[in-house]
């Protein structure tokens, strides 16, 4: 069943080409995009079953065996990431289609929207599936290039301002990543993740630490971990609502995924666990304090996004199975909830004409459906008991207590405080936008029903994660066990000891 593995990358890329060719027919473009992403969703479902029952699936691209050629690997972790991202991508696409129909597609360069969006989907999938460090870099570049275009869509002054900061920071993180790749190749002579995990153990610990720091810097900028997170709340809020939603949901999580992969497969000696835990603690607190100060819903949500990245980094830094498993659970929960909230923010902007909390009000009376749609994911984000946010946080806090070091306990306390402050921030937003009377009368706009659908699906999904919490935790436990054992991944890639399936005899040196 390993033919499933490359499909999440290939289908959106082909569809992007088709959509570009159909740039004069927006309807056909929309149909192509929806069809492509639905197919990816189906593939992701298939992949999750196959990897869960038969172990990691590997494709050696072009038939070249693993360390020589490029391997695409789907294991439990990447299959889950793919599934969640496919759902989110599809929902946001439907939302933006509904928005386009409502706006009559005027003034917006939709002709490039669909192809770029599909390329973004391909880049995200490529990053999740990559079994090779350089291919991971290419995946990052694909999604970054697409995100540059989406973020500056229309080229208004504000978007160019926010976009230039985002672009420069992203370029810098890519350069750091590339330097790390060059140094890793110089030190080990390979970039295949499975082979690296064996070879990195043999090199000097000092060199290994330098390599780890370099990679971590590159990924931490992408994931918006505290000292490197200042770019995010600045650049995300200006983009169109669906774009912000998909960026907030997915792009930072690709960085988190890369950190998980790197900490479990490449650098297992735990040299930076303490640093990561400090970063997690500070990310949570600084992020949420920023959110409390904001008076614009989109900016507030961007700060909560930064803050909650801290939870995932905390789970990774614990480096035990419970911690990893809860971190993976939390990633899945947070992707859906954060995307849903940004989509709701887009709906609020349409209904109230602004996202500034100083001008909004009385939406609870005017748009009760919208109020419910905001309330459910907001409470889920804060971690109110029966919901999935609570389950994720409980898992992480338990794992922190299990470890029991004083720093872990301090981070657990910070996590609780962050959860409380998140509740304060979203309730403040809720009060001002929905509960209190508006300072001035809001415009009498109506929001199209078709935009509610995808938002509601995502909000419900966030709640549904709690209903299927048991099976989902079983799955993430298994994924975390695989990650810590490493052998399932390595054995699947390097079937013949030091070579994978495919054409390449062990001719000549072993450096490639």
């Amino acid at each position, binding site marked *: 069943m390993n033919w499933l593995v490359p499909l999440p990358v290939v289908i959106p890329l082909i569809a992007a080409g088709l959509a570009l060719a159909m740039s004069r027919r927006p309807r056909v473009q929309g149909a192509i995009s929806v069809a492509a992403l639905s197919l990816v969703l189906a593939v992701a479902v298939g992949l999750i079953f196959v990897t869960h029952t038969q172990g990691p699936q590997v494709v050696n691209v072009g038939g070249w065996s693993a360390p020589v050629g490029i391997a695409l690997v789907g294991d439990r972790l990447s299959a889950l990431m793919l599934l969640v991202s496919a759902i989110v991508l599809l929902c946001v696409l439907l939302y933006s289609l509904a928005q386009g129909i409502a706006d009559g597609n005027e003034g917006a360069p939709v002709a490039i929207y669909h192809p770029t969006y599909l390329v973004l989907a391909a880049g995200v999938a490529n990053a999740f599936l990559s079994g090779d460090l*350089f291919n991971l870099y*290419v995946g990052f*570049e694909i999604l*970054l*290039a697409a995100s*540059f*275009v989406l973020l*500056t869509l229309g*080229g208004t*002054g504000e978007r*160019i*301002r*926010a*976009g*230039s*900061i985002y*672009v*420069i920071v992203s*370029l*810098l993180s890519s*350069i750091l990543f*590339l*330097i790390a*790749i*060059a*140094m890793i*190749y*110089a030190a080990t002579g390979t*970039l295949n993740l499975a082979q690296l995990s064996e070879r990195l153990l043999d090199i000097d610990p000092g060199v290994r630490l330098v390599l780890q720091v370099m990679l971590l810097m590159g990924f931490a900028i992408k994931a918006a971990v505290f000292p490197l997170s200042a770019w995010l709340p*600045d650049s995300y809020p200006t983009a169109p609502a669906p774009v912000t939603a998909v960026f907030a949901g997915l792009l930072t999580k690709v960085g988190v995924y890369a950190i998980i992969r790197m900490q479990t497969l490449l650098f297992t000696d735990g040299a930076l666990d303490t640093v990561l835990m400090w970063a997690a603690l500070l990310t949570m607190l600084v992020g949420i304090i920023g959110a409390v*100060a*904001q*008076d*614009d819903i989109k*900016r507030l949500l961007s700060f909560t996004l930064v803050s909650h990245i801290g939870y995932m980094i905390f789970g990774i830094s614990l480096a035990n199975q419970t911690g990893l498993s809860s971190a993976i659970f939390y990633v899945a929960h947070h992707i859906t909830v954060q995307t849903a909230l940004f989509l709701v923010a887009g709906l609020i902007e349409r209904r109230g004409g602004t996202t500034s*909390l*100083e001008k909004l*009000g009385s939406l609870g009376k005017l748009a009760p459906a919208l109020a419910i749609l905001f309330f459910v994911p907001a409470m889920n984000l804060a971690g109110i008991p029966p919901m999935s946010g609570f389950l994720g946080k409980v898992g992480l806090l338990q794992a922190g207590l299990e470890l029991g070091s004083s720093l872990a306990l301090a981070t657990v306390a910070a996590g609780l405080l962050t959860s409380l402050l998140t509740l304060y921030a979203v309730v*403040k937003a809720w*009060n*001002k936008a929905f*509960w*209190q009377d508006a*300072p001035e009368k809001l415009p009498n706009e109506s929001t199209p029903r078709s935009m509610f659908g995808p938002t509601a699906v995502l909000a419900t999904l966030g709640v549904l994660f709690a209903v299927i919490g048991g099976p989902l935790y079983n799955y993430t436990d298994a994924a975390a066990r695989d990650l810590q054992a490493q052998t399932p991944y390595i054995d699947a890639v390097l079937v013949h000891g030091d070579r994978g399936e495919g054409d390449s005899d062990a*001719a*000549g*040196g072993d*450096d*490639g």
Partner: protein
Amino acid sequence: MIDMTPNVTLAIVVGVLVGTGVYLLLERSLSRVIIGVTLISNGVNVLMLIAGGAAGGPPLIGSGPPEDMADPLPQAMVLTAIVINLGLTSFVLAMAYRSWQLHGHDEVQDDLEDRRIARRAERGAVDKRDDDVGTNLAIEAAEARDETEEVPLVTGHGPQLGAEDDDVTGRRS
């Protein structure tokens, strides 16, 4: 086996390219930032070549003993990195041009929103609805009534009360 000792000249080239690149990256003007990014990327590309070891023969089967061949992988990676860098540079150039169209310069501007919030906090001018929970105790107490109080007067009970009601109002007030 080819020589794996790094070449000093190449290492210095990397240092100079990355150093000047970082200096330019710290500038405000987008066009200088682009030149900076390009310089750094080229420096990193040279670093990648160093990672592959010294130059050897062409890596083609049959062209010589495999031990004397150059490592082809870093070259392939450098090629990919150059192409990616070309695409991204052209995008930033387009963005700089757009910024020049809109503002007459291509300087990266600050985000004003955070500064506005900080200034407002300094002035102590918090949004007056901030701590307002939608109720005011004094008003609520005045409005609250129970059966021990006199029946309050409500105007507009209905048409049947008519003129008498007006009289009552007059006397009491």
